[in-house]
């Protein structure tokens, strides 16, 4: 039995969620009738069991890697087998995939568990759980596949599940619109992925990472620049970077556990994973990498400033996610992949926690999301409040919380890496400063102060608070996985666990310890000082009114810099115009008449042709003779030629 499990661990990790999806999908018609707590709990239990099984398999896989195996490889089946091209579903669990699977299945399990409580009042939550399991399957496929093509399948699969879950409450057209927007914006990025795959295949004849790694060489750097640009474009779509970030805040229309799992912890980090996986391409294209770093820094600032003026609790967190993803892209752009993966992990902890906490608040307030109508929830929701405080401390980077280590590592990388610069460092610091302000503003508006609209929420049940507590623990201590080397030795730890772990798979950044303008300790000190200042400013500025001191700036930020309006004017309206034109001319004039023309044409030609079939025996005989002569003539002609 244990051999059976152990020899095919990647298979178990990947397919248990798919099994949960199929099971929930099959029993859905039974469970869908009427609102029933038991039925929802049953559906949820199936989903949670599938995810927990997957998590156990992921832990077993991690242990095998920790004991020294380089990677676990399982071939599931060969999909395409041509003479010069073969691609199959081959699972490859190496150290990078292992970190990702642990995050996906671990946090996924917690969020599935939380969803049982959150979705208990819904009608037919089996659909929700089925989609959620399908999402986890797609995400695991994305991180486990050993070739780009199946990564792309996972990439599309998570996009599909994101679409399905954003529009879970499809009765309201706003939700359906948000889902469509997310899907369409993602498609723009996906085009880059497809083109990059085509280019790589045309040049190297393979899409397998290992083979690409061995064939890519500095001679083809000019060609790889195109590939890198396209892959970066794909990543901006999925990971909500400027200029394709606009779908993520709208995606908050879905149920909150979806926002926590898909739009904070896992799916949006797919771009970062792609960078870490394809590092051998990006390392050869420094120009693209600096664009990536600057895009990340810009996105971090953009998201951070917009989050200052949002009033919807989930919108604040959404823009905060955009901002934090910007940090990760900043790190990847500098070549500090391990810092990006580290921040990806800590961000998954604290942002999932913050989202679930926000969900708990929304659940307690009967669906209210506007923070102007909250306030004073500290007393009603003590567990949620404390866990949210821990999560906020982590995202603000207060010392020893997880975000402190990961964010400081990125900030240090911004000035100590060869490609870093003071500009990037300053942008990162400013974004970190903004993080503190908007986080305090969110806490101030929802938990502290006096209750405004007289909402008397109730604390969520244990099934929801337990994941909060586990995540709060992780968000608090998770940072110790990445203590900087210098400090680790002083603290008696073995070293920077994450970077040591990833070193065989992903190149670990070489920090310029001596040449850096500021030492790592100084960077931490400045970042923490800025965070504290941010907290104090936020506390005093948003004590009584929640707008920014400058009303014009507040309006600009609340309207998200009018980017959506800009895109509407630039892309959406012209597309509508073209569509209208096509429907009025091409469709109304041509396509609709085409059917009539075809019918009239066949009737007319049939009328002409039917005279041939006159019923006269001798005409038939003549035609027969003609045909025979023709055949004889042709065959004679053919033999002569």
């Amino acid at each position, binding site marked *: 039995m244990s051999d059976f499990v152990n020899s095919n661990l990647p298979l178990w990790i990947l397919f248990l969620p798919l099994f949960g999806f199929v099971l929930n999908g099959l029993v859905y018609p039974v469970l869908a009738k009427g609102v029933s707590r038991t039925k929802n709990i049953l559906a949820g239990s199936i989903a949670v069991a599938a995810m927990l099984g997957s998590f156990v398999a992921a832990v077993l896989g991690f242990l095998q890697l920790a004991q020294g195996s380089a990677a676990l490889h399982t071939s599931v089946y060969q999909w395409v087998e041509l003479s010069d091209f073969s691609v199959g579903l081959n699972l490859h669990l190496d150290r990078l995939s292992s970190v990702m699977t642990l995050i996906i299945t671990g946090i996924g399990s917690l969020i599935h568990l939380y969803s049982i409580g959150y979705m208990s009042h819904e009608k037919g939550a089996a659909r929700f759980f089925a989609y959620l399991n399908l999402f986890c399957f797609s995400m695991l496929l994305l991180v486990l596949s050993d070739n780009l093509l199946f990564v792309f399948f996972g990439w599309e699969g998570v996009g599909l599940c994101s679409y399905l879950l954003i529009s879970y409450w499809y009765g309201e057209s706003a939700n359906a619109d948000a889902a469509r927007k997310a899907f369409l914006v993602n498609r723009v990025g996906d085009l880059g992925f497809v083109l990059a795959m085509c280019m790589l295949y045309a040049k190297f004849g393979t899409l397998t990472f290992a083979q690409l790694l061995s064939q890519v060489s500095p001679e083809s750097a000019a060609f790889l620049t195109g590939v890198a640009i396209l892959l970066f474009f794909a990543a901006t779509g999925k990971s909500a970077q400027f200029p394709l970030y606009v779908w993520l805040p709208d995606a908050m229309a879905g149920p909150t556990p979806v926002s926590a799992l898909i739009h904070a912890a896992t799916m949006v980090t797919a771009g970062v994973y792609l960078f870490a996986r394809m590092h051998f391409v990006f390392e050869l294209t420094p120009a693209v990498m600096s664009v990536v770093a600057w895009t990340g820094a810009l996105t971090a600032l953009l998201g951070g400033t917009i989050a200052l003026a949002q009033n919807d609790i989930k919108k604040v967190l959404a823009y905060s996610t955009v901002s934090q993803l910007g940090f990760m892209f900043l790190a990847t752009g500098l070549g500090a992949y391990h810092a990006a993966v580290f921040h990806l992990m800590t961000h998954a902890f604290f942002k999932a926690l913050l989202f679930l906490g926000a969900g708990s608040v929304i659940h307690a307030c009967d669906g209210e999301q506007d923070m102007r109508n909250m306030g004073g929830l500290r007393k009603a929701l003590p567990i949620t409040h404390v866990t949210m405080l821990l999560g906020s401390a982590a995202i603000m980077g207060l010392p020893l919380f997880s975000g402190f280590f990961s964010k400081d590592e990125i900030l240090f990388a911004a000035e100590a890496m060869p490609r870093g610069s003071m500009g990037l460092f300053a942008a990162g610091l400013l974004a970190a400063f903004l993080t503190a302000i908007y986080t305090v503003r969110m806490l101030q508006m929802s938990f502290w102060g006096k209750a405004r609209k007289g909402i008397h929420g109730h604390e969520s049940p244990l099934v929801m608070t337990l994941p909060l507590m586990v995540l709060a623990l992780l968000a608090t201590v998770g940072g110790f996985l990445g203590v900087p080397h210098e400090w680790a030795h002083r603290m008696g730890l073995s070293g920077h666990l994450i970077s040591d772990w990833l070193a065989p798979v992903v190149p670990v950044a070489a920090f310029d310890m001596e040449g850096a303008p500021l030492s790592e300790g100084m960077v931490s000190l400045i970042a923490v000082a800025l965070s504290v200042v941010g907290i104090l400013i936020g506390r005093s500025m948003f004590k009584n009114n929640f707008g920014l001191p400058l009303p014009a700036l507040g309006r600009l930020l609340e309207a998200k810099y009018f980017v959506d309006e800009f895109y509407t004017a630039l892309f959406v309206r012209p597309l509508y115009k073209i569509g209208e034109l096509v429907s009025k001319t091409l469709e109304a004039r041509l396509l609709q008449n085409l059917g009539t023309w075809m019918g009239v044409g066949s009737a007319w030609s049939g009328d002409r042709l039917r005279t041939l079939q*006159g019923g*006269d025996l001798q005409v038939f005989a003549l035609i027969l003779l003609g045909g025979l002569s023709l055949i004889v003539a042709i065959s004679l002609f053919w033999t002569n030629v």
Partner: protein
Amino acid sequence: MDTGILLHCLSAWLLCMGLLAVTLRRNTLVMLMGIELMLNGVNLSFVTFSRELAQINGQLQVFFIITIAAVESAVGLSILVNVYRNFGSIKTDRTNTLRG
């Protein structure tokens, strides 16, 4: 002139006459006779070639054709009997209901 050429010309002439009878005459009986004429034209051609090439195959083939022709006229005549019963005539301009 060589007898062979004459015989070939005769066989071709027989075939053409048969063809004309089949395609032009309205009487189905005459059409059947035309078919027989065509078959015999072919037979003559076979026999002539057999004589010229000094091979027995052609003459052998003729026996088969004569047998088939006998069968064909038996079937054809019985069809004609039925045609006459159904249409009251064996002229082809009356039996033209098979049309589009």
